[in-house]
């Protein structure tokens, strides 16, 4: 009798875990429980191998040589760009700029857009839950141009106060820069609605997608984002590689960021003319292997499917929220209605550093501290939190270990 095979609707976690070689190692002589993917995710074999193979068989500098090898490398590099274009549904591949990461993407826009469009009395609108990398570049350009930084406040639940956002938007606002998902609280911000409101006043919007890209399908056209930035290393790709998406007309209007090779059309000592998009913003030899690794990561994520990833992570989040709440004295920081798989918490009378140090001894990797969001920690009047973040390879058993570990640490510390 033929057996009817049911189409698996859930993730095959064992299969996924076997793709990530690091997950089989130990930390402090215990099988590692890696709950810090919001800082950087682990890499599947597919990504690692793609980069090895590139260096073994395809490497030459791109956009230069007339020889076949250079052409192959260039093709692979540009194919990676098109794969990113599809990943975030950009209109054109030239709207995809390779950077070193989210931080560089924001610095590029702050510096380049800022030098061209900001002047004294103008305002840059960010939020109180931004990562330092979406605060400091704007402060730097404000100092140079005389523009001022304005901040959308955060509610007790860890959500942006939308009435205040609307109140702060004005003809003085020249750009809005907000995070899609808070790295410290997990809050998913209503960025589509925020972009719509800003566009009603002709204000462009940059979205920091560092935490969103690993967890949900990004569609820059649907969002109508003017700029969208993220890092490869949080989407199971390599470190040192990131993406800046920018609408073509904005990128064309902005001056180059770095000068050098690749970004020029002609150079004389009197005048240099610049190359077209995307090369105008890609001075120097790019991270070719990084781009190829990112493409492999995108292929990996898309083969699993965003729906399944989201479903799995939502399940982990709700399981962990319930489990952790059972611990006496534990308080979750950030209780937004819409949350990604990030849980920040504190236990009454316990410093996050102490908790993190003991969890480390138990083989559990969590992040402790202010998560590069000091103004947000000040807002909640806390020194920092313990943050557990979940990815496609995490399991409920690991969350059980976390909860047991937290309880053990609390018993030791109090």
């Amino acid at each position: 009798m033929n057996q009817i095979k049911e189409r698996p609707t859930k993730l095959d976690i064992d299969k996924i875990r076997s793709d990530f070689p690091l997950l089989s190692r130990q930390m402090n002589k215990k099988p590692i429980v890696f709950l810090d993917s919001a800082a950087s995710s682990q890499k599947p074999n597919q990504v690692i191998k793609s980069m090895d193979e590139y260096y073994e068989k395809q490497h030459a500098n791109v956009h230069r040589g007339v020889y076949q090898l250079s052409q192959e490398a260039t093709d692979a590099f540009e194919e990676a760009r098109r794969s990113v274009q599809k990943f975030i549904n950009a209109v054109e591949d030239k709207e995809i700029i390779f950077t070193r990461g989210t931080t560089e993407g924001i610095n590029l826009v702050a510096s380049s857009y800022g030098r061209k469009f900001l002047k004294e009395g103008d305002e840059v609108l960010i939020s109180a839950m931004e990562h330092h990398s979406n605060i400091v570049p704007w402060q730097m350009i404000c100092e140079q141009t005389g523009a001022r930084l304005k901040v959308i406040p955060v509610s007790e639940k860890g959500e942006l106060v939308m009435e205040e956002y609307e109140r702060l938007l004005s003809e003085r606002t020249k750009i809005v820069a907000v995070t899609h998902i808070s790295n410290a609280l997990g809050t998913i911000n209503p960025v589509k609605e925020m972009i719509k409101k800003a566009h009603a006043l002709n204000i462009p919007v940059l979205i920091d997608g560092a935490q969103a890209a690993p967890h949900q399908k990004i569609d820059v056209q649907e969002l109508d984002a003017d700029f969208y930035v993220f890092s490869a290393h949080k989407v199971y790709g390599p470190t040192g590689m990131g993406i800046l998406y920018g609408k073509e007309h904005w990128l064309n209007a902005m001056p180059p960021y770095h000068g050098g090779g690749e970004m020029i059309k002609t150079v004389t000592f009197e005048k240099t003319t610049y190359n077209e998009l995307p090369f105008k913003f890609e001075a120097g030899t790019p991270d070719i292997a990084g781009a190829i690794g990112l493409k492999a990561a995108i292929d990996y994520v898309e083969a699993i499917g965003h729906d399944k990833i989201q479903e799995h992570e939502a399940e982990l989040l709700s399981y962990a929220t319930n489990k952790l709440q059972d611990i006496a004295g534990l308080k979750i920081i950030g209780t937004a209605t819409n949350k990604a798989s990030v849980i920040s918490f504190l236990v009454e009378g316990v410093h996050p550093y102490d908790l993190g140090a003991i969890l480390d001894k138990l083989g559990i990797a969590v992040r402790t501290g202010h998560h590069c969001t000091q103004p947000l920690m000040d807002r909640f009047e806390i020194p920092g939190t313990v943050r557990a973040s979940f990815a496609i390879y995490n399991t409920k058993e690991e969350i059980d270990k976390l909860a047991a570990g937290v309880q053990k640490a609390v018993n030791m510390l109090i």
Partner: protein
Amino acid sequence: MSINQIQDEIIEEFSFFGDWMEKYEYIIDLGKQLPLIDEQYKDEEHLIKGCQSKVWLHAGKENDHITFTSDSDAIITKGIIALLIRVLSGQKAEEIAKADLYFIDEIGLKEHLSQTRSNGLVSMVKQMKMYGLAFASKN
């Protein structure tokens, strides 16, 4: 006792612990017992800011000896501070300045004194030695 004699004493004490939990429980106890720094010194001036935990340090001078008092908002950090104070407080300024604090490594706590932990301890040790250097040169 000299700095090194105290360090050796601590290393011997720690050799009796069976596993990391016993060790950490002891450090946590030390943290809880550490006499608090005088409240007046718990200010910005005496604060050593780490990314993760805060440390306050005060140095007092008696003849050519330095007495340290300190506090931290994290208990494990505080326990390690208690050990550092046991080793360095009451010692001669010039001895503190040139001290080689090998005991941290030997008792298996060096991860707490690494830059990535950023708990204020690395800066605290530096600061203690700076006091030693400053007070020694005044003599």
